[in-house]
């Protein structure tokens, strides 16, 4: 099971904040996105994290990982 999370304006755009994905084989971060969001493109400026660390979209996701998608951060 992979946990998937969305934050900020992206969460509003896709209308969900949390979901789970059962997978039988390893997927890239971008493949996780498309599994759950079909053809909707992941905008170029969106950031991706696995287990709370920033990773590239080509990074491989394993069972039990938490994957997150979000827009550029604006704290501080």
């Amino acid at each position, binding site marked *: 099971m992979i946990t998937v*999370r969305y*934050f*900020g*304006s992206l969460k*509003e755009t896709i209308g969900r904040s949390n979901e789970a994905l059962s997978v039988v084989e390893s997927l890239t971060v971008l493949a996780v996105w498309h599994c759950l969001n079909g053809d909707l493109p992941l905008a170029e*400026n969106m950031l991706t*994290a696995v287990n*709370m*660390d*920033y990773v590239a979209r080509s990074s491989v996701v394993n069972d039990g990982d938490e994957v*997150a998608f*979000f*827009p*550029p*951060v*604006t*704290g*501080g």
Partner: protein
Amino acid sequence: MTIKICDAAFEPFAEIQTFQNALALNGKFGATSIFIGTMRDFNDGDNVQAMTLEHYDGMTQKQLAKIVAAANSKWQILDCLIVHRVGDILPNEPIVLVAVWSAHRGEAFEACRYLMEELKKNAPFWKLEKLATNEKRWVSKI
């Protein structure tokens, strides 16, 4: 080295004073550099009446800890304190506090600036503004 995420208004000067009093560093630090970010009532040409600060709980703490570790490897820091507000915020309320204690001023100034810049780059916070017109708007990266 302390990192606090808080969901209610905080008093930055009281936070620093309390933290400093608890440090066993009397006579050891010669320099303290502090930055406080405060909510303005005006942004990008519009009046703002309130703001909601969303964050990725867990990742925020993990990223801030990495930033603090990086600063520690770059400069001789005696201690540092980071406080960041989340949730609903009103104008004039503090959003972020970064304070660094060191022996000499160069280290304190540079580490404090570094912590703030890295926090703005990497810590997963997102600001949702409520304008005076009641319109809501996500703040976008400048």
